[in-house]
C-alpha cells in the first residue's frame, strides 16, 4: 500500500494537516488576553532598542508566556536582532538588498542538488510545503541564499525544517536574516562540516545528565548509549522534528530570547523524566530496557507524550545555572580535543 495523505485530515489553524483527533491541541488563550499581549508587543517593537537595553527581564517574561501568533514572526525578527543585522548589511550592499543580491548568484551544483532533494521533504504535513506548495520556492531561495552567504557551511539537511518554520511566520527576506542569526549567533557551527559543535553539545548534555540525573546517567552508560543518538535531531532541528505548533512555537519564543540553553534544558528534562523523575510507568519501562535502541526510542516517545506544560515548568525548576552549562560545554570541548589528539597519535 502507498500512503497518500489521508482524506479525513483536517487543516489546523497553523497550516498543518492533522488527524481530526489531534486538532484539539491548541493554545487556549482568552481573546481579550491575547489582544492585550499583542498590544504590548506592538508597543515594544516601536521602542525596541531601549526596551532590550533596559527591560530585558520583561521581554523574557513575555516570551515565556508565549508570543501572540499575530506578532510572533516580527517578535522573532526583533529578538534575534535580524532586523538590525539586515539593516546594517543592506546599507553596504549596492543592490540595497543583500538577500536579493545573493539570489542572483548560483551555488555549487552539489549544494543545489542537496537542497532540491529536501524541498518537499521538510514539512509534507504543512500546507505551504506539501506537493508544490507556495513555500517550496521560498525555501529554495532562503537555503540558496545562505549557501552563497556562507559557502563553508553550504547546505546541511537539518537547516531546511528550520528555514521552513521561519517561512511560516515571515516573508522570505526577513526569514533569511533570522535564519542567518540562528546559524551564526545561536547555534554557530551546528551545520558545519565535521559537525564538531553538535558533537560538543551532545557530550555536554551527557555531562549535565550525570549531574541532574545520576540514575539516568548510570543507565545510559550501562547500555552504552552515545548522546549523539538522542540529541542530534533535537538540537540540529531546534526540536522541530519532535514538536509542532503550538508547542514548538512556544519553545522557539523562549529560544530566541534566551538562546541555546533552552534546548539543553528541555533535553535534560526529557531525559530526567524518562529515566528518573517521570510517571512510574515510563521510568520502570526505562529500567527494563536492555539495549540502546529501546532506551532511545523510549526517550523520544516520552518527549512527545508528556504534556508540554509539564516540561516547560520542569525546565524552569531545573537546578542548573548558566555557569554549569558553560562549564559542561568547556569540559566537552576539551575532551573531544583530547580524543582527536589521541587518535592522531595512534595513527602516527
Amino acid at each position: 500500500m502507498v500512503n497518500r495523505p489521508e482524506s479525513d485530515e483536517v487543516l489546523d489553524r497553523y497550516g498543518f494537516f492533522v488527524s481530526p483527533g489531534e486538532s484539539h491541541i491548541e493554545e487556549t488563550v482568552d481573546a481579550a488576553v491575547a489582544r492585550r499581549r499583542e498590544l504590548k508587543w506592538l508597543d515594544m517593537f516601536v521602542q525596541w532598542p531601549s526596551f532590550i537595553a533596559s527591560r530585558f527581564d520583561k521581554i523574557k517574561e513575555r516570551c515565556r508566556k508565549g508570543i501572540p501568533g499575530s506578532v510572533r514572526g516580527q517578535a522573532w525578527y526583533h529578538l534575534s536582532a535580524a532586523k538590525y543585522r539586515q539593516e546594517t548589511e543592506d546599507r553596504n550592499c549596492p543592490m540595497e538588498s543583500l538577500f536579493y543580491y545573493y539570489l542572483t548568484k548560483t551555488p555549487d551544483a552539489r549544494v543545489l542538488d542537496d537542497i532540491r532533494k529536501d524541498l518537499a521533504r521538510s514539512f509534507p504535513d504543512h500546507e505551504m510545503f506539501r506537493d508544490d506548495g507556495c513555500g517550496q520556492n521560498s525555501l529554495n531561495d532562503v537555503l540558496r541564499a545562505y549557501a552563497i552567504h556562507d559557502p563553508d557551511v553550504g547546505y546541511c539537511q537539518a537547516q531546511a525544517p528550520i528555514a521552513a518554520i521561519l517561512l511560516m511566520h515571515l516573508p522570505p527576506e526577513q526569514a533569511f536574516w533570522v535564519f542567518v542569526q540562528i546559524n551564526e549567533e545561536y547555534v554557530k557551527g551546528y551545520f558545519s562540516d565535521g559537525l564538531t559543535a553538535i558533537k560538543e553539545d551532545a557530550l555536554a548534555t551527557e555531562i549535565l545528565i550525570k549531574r541532574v540525573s545520576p540514575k539516568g546517567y548510570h543507565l545510559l552508560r550501562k547500555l552504552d548509549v552515545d548522546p549523539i543518538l538522542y540529541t542530534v535531531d533535537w538540537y540540529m532541528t531546534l526540536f522541530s522534528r519532535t514538536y509542532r505548533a503550538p508547542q514548538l512555537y512556544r519553545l522557539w519564543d523562549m529560544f530566541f530570547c534566551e538562546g541555546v540553553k533552552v534546548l539543553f534544558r528541555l533535553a535534560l528534562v526529557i531525559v530526567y523524566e524518562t529515566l528518573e523523575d517521570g510517571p512510574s510507568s515510563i521510568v520502570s519501562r526505562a529500567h527494563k530496557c536492555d539495549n540502546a535502541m529501546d532506551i532511545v526510542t523510549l526517550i523520544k516517545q516520552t518527549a512527545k507524550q508528556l504534556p508540554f506544560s509539564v516540561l516547560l515548568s520542569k525546565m524552569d525548576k531545573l537546578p542548573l545555572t548558566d555557569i554549569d552549562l558553560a562549564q559542561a560545554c568547556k569540559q566537552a570541548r576539551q575532551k573531544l580535543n583530547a580524543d582527536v589528539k589521541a587518535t592522531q597519535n595512534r595513527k602516527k
Partner: protein
Amino acid sequence: MAREDEYDYLFKVVLIGDSGVGKSNLLSRFTRNEFNLESKSTIGVEFATRSIQVDKKTIKAQIWDTAGQERYRAITSAYYRGAVGALLVYDISKHTTYENVERWLKELRDHADANIVISLVGNKSDLRHLRSVPSDEAKSFSEKNGISFIETSALDSTNVEQAFQTILTEIYRIVSQRPMPESTGTQINGGAGSSHIPIRLPPTNPVSDSKQNTSCCS
C-alpha cells in the same frame, strides 16, 4: 518488555547510502509494509524492528536508518557500533549515488566491525525507464567486493523482503556456527522474559574507541 520481545537472536543492521535513495521507505516497507511518497528527510537516526524466523529460530532485527548527507558521516561511528549487518543502498536511477558506494564501503571499513555483513541494494527498480546503473555493473562490482547484491523497489515492494531476509540469514549462518563466548559482564543484560543469546563478532581492531562492548546491539 512485551512478549513480542522473545527472540533467539538480536541483530543490529544499519541502512546507509546517499540522501534520497529511499532508505527510510525500505525500512518502513519491511517493518510496517508502508510506503510514503511524502516522507521527511532523516536527520540523525531512526529505528524500527521486525522479527523473522530462520531455522525455527526467532531473529529480531533492529534496523537503524541514518541520515545520508555527507557531513553526517562525522557522527556515524555512533551508529555503527555493534552493527552486524549493513544494507548499502543506492538509487538505480541516479548514477552519483552508485559512484558513492565505494566511499560508503570505506566508511564501513573505517568505523564498523571488520566482520560486518554487507549487502549492496539498488533501490527504485520500479523506475525502469530512468535506469542509469546497469544491474550487471553493480553485480560484478559486488562480486569483486565479496558482498551480496539485490535490486529492490520500496514503492512496489519488489525484493524488499528478500533483501532483509538474505542479510539476516547470512548473519545467522555466521553466528550460529560459532560457539557462544562466555559472559564477560558487558553483554546485553537480559530484559524481562527475553531468552535471547547475545551475539558477538570477534573483535577486530582492539584499540578502537575504547569500547569493550561488542555485543550486537550495544
